[in-house]
């Protein structure tokens, strides 16, 4: 690939979002293989449509929207196929936390706290974990999230509030998370 290829600038810019997109793909699919396929599909769709993107558009947000649409289409397409059942947040969380090694030589408490928070986010229902990831991990604004999820900004606010409340209640049950961190009362 060279500078003469119109795809070159897209590749250079878009590859910096790979980790974020993969993280979002994992958030949506919770399966490594599916997530990798979804990332590949997203980049393919994006590079083909890149020429139609407005110059002042948010490339990262646009690619997140492409990924989510691709995932929704895939879910719709395979609706007749066997599908996973969303586990209850706490039950799923417990299953995931069980995978975190309780190693006496393990890393600092801070890292454990981080691992547990990540596992707690992964254990949230899909609608909650995607909005937490978009806002608190990826830092999108409410309006950008509304564009990605294709819903009103008001829906983003209310769903984000409920997602954080759920995450807070899950984290409240962990010993490694300081009570001060969780907060006594949800806003």
């Amino acid at each position, binding site marked *: *690939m060279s500078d003469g*290829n*119109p*795809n070159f600038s*897209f*590749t250079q810019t*878009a*590859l910096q979002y*790979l*980790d974020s*997109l*993969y*993280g979002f793909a*994992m*958030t949506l699919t919770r399966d490594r293989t599916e*997530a*990798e396929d979804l*990332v*590949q599909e997203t*980049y*393919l769709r994006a*590079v*083909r*449509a*890149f*020429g*139609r993107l*407005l110059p*002042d558009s948010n490339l990262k947000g646009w690619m997140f929207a492409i990924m989510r649409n691709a995932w929704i289409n895939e879910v719709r397409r395979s609706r007749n196929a066997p599908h996973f059942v969303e586990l209850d947040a706490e039950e799923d969380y417990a299953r995931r936390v069980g995978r975190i090694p309780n190693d006496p030589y393990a890393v600092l408490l801070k890292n454990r*706290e*981080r691992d547990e*928070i*990540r596992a707690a*986010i992964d254990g949230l229902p899909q609608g909650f974990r995607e909005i*937490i*990831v978009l*806002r*608190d*991990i*990826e830092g999108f*604004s*409410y*309006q950008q999230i*509304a*564009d990605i999820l*294709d819903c*009103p*900004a008001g829906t983003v606010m209310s769903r984000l*509030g409920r997602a*954080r409340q759920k*995450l*807070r209640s899950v984290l409240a049950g962990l010993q490694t*998370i300081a009570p*001060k*961190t*969780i*907060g*006594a*009362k949800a*806003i």
Partner: protein
Amino acid sequence: MNPCEQIRDQIIFYLDDELEARERVSLEVHLRSCAPCRDLFEQEKCFLETVRRAGPVHKASPALRTRIKETLEDVPPPHAAPAALRQRIERTVWGSFVTTAGGHFRGALWRAAVILIAFVVGYGVFGRYRIYEHTQQPSAFASMAVDRHQRHLRDQLPLEVVSAAPDQISAWFAGKVPFKVELPNYQEMSGQERLYELEGARLVDYENNHAAYVAYRMRNRPISLLVTSQQIVEPSGGEEIVSKNITFHYDSIDGFKVITWADRGLAYALVSDLEERGQQSCIVCHQGTRDQDFIRSLKPRSSFWK
């Protein structure tokens, strides 16, 4: 709702950086004098910082990174002709001109002359109505207008002022945009049947400047009008149609009809899903009988238009 309740409702928006400057200052002033609200603020801040420190939740493997790079390298540039087609066309073109003894060359020259004559004759006939028959890619301005129209349809672009009174909308824009937005009130003045409804307006960003967005509805079908300074954008692209010394640019983007033009220092875009070129959307400013000639001039003369 007492002041503390109001502030507590806003804390999360403050921490998400979603408050306006005035609201942020108001909240900060209150926190300085209210210990219970300050405690709640600190708790919420601590919670969000902890969650945010946990990211990124997942990281792409080097293998995936390589796979994506290879995928992108394999994708041809958008709208590029396949290599086989490119070679075939090159062979055809060069074959016509390079063939010996002049037979093919004269043939190619003759064909080119016929095409040129046909073009000139066609241009002369249709040129009375349309100065330019060729079509170019839609401009960024036209694409932006369609995008904002679609967002408005999806409730992602709420109106900042809701009014059916053109003078109220015009007054609302005063001081917000560096030009005067004058919306005609022909329906009221003429006493004619109301063919469209003015819904309201808002500001939209374009090229780091505010543009005026006005929403209409005609027979329950939405119409968007965008106005900005001609210094920011010079309408271009699409099919060009000249009428009354104004060049209109017509595009069809994602099934929506968009007409862009510039007049007296302002650039305009009209978006709708109306028939043909959507020329009936012009009625929001041109409802008078004498304006019908102008609207008819934008009507397509063949059935090639969707």
